[in-house]
């Protein structure tokens, strides 16, 4: 029964992340939209490494592809590689201080963008402007706060 509730909460937060990804915003804010789904996935893998992993990342990437209208598999690919790295490095990442962790998260987010860029290029899309990389920095700045917020949430809901 407890397992069910945990999964429900993980799915709920990920759905909110998807929602934030397509929520309409004014044009100048568009390029500062953080990679919500990626951030949430990193958090859940760090918190529940035995539950959330590569398959979750792959599936969420697929859902993001469908929602955002990108090529099917674009985010599935980048998220599963990113998720794999987090699973592998999770024990080290958990020991890091907040700023070290934020920096590693920036690296992971940049890797995700890089893989997406590669897919865009392979599909014949033009190389996006420099603003393409802004989201990774927004994600890095956001990470400590998101971490605190979500950790509080998991503690209140007693998810370990």
């Amino acid at each position: 029964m407890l397992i069910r509730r945990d999964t429900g909460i993980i799915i709920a937060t990920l759905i909110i992340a998807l929602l934030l990804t397509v929520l309409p915003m004014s044009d100048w804010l568009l390029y500062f939209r953080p990679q919500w789904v990626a951030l949430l996935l990193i958090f859940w893998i760090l918190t529940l490494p035995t539950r959330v992993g590569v398959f979750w990342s792959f599936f969420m990437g697929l859902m993001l592809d469908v929602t955002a209208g990108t090529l099917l598999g674009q985010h599935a690919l980048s998220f599963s590689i990113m998720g794999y790295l987090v699973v592998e490095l999770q024990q080290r990442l958990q020991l890091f201080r907040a700023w070290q962790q934020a920096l590693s998260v920036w690296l992971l987010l940049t890797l995700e963008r890089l893989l997406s860029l590669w897919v865009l290029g392979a599909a014949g899309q033009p190389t996006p402007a420099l603003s393409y990389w802004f989201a990774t920095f927004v994600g890095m700045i956001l990470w400590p706060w998101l971490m605190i917020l979500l950790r509080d949430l998991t503690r209140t809901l007693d998810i370990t």
Partner: protein
Amino acid sequence: MKPLFNRGTSATARLALTVPLSLSLLVADLHYPQLDLLRSTLSVVVFPLYYLAALPARLGETLEGRLADEKQLRLNNAQLHNDNLILQAQLQKYAALEAENQRLRNLLGSAFKVGERVLIAELLEVDLDPYRQQVLVDKGENAGVFIGQPVLDAQAVMGQVIRTNPLTATVLLITDAAHSLPVQVNRNGLRAIATGTGIINQLNLLHLPKKADIRPGDLLVTSGLGGVFPPGYPVARVTEVRAESGERFATVIAEPTARLERSHEVLLVWSAPSTSPSLLPDTNTPAVSSTNPPAATTTTP
């Protein structure tokens, strides 16, 4: 008890499964249309998400409608009345011209038919991937929307439908880098291909010789050659023509006349079947007629 160290191999094995899977999905989505079924099934699951995301914008609109004061509404009404009068006057002239055009074409013996069916759809207020030029509209297969259907706004051609599911349809805008459409210069009938650049207000005209008779300010209209867009709709206005030495063709840049980033309502068009004269006996009428929607549509005269 949680195992501490047995994650590595299993995660690697999973990665070895998901990476080839996503790569094959990518290739399949790029080259084979069969995957659309998977996507449209999944997008039905996602539809409530779109609905939720569009909710704040929609609520704001309703609230604005409720709160608008009477004076404002009266003013609006008067303005719309005036616009309507002007448009109707223009339409009268247009109707006469259309009749004349039809008569002349009949004299020439060509099977040209004007008169297309349109359906008004609203854009769903959601932000799709900002690196592709595509929008979502709130009419889908249930309203008879089909893949390849042309989409216009009040001014000009906007794009075409690339994906449908029962409730929504995805429209690829003409400025997407994967989109090309056959156009001709309205002034002299010069034909060209207008390709998107991935920038919202820019089109490139490919393979035009340097001495082609085209200049800034020329209006480009659809030529109807691709069979997707009905002929004669405005597309873009040429903004820049350059003949660079070293390049084989002229660089021609045009700006779409449609308000691609601002339109709220769009028109989905059903072209009249067999618009171009054909030499073969009429066996291959397009499948468009079978997918025509039920009666809840407006018809242009």
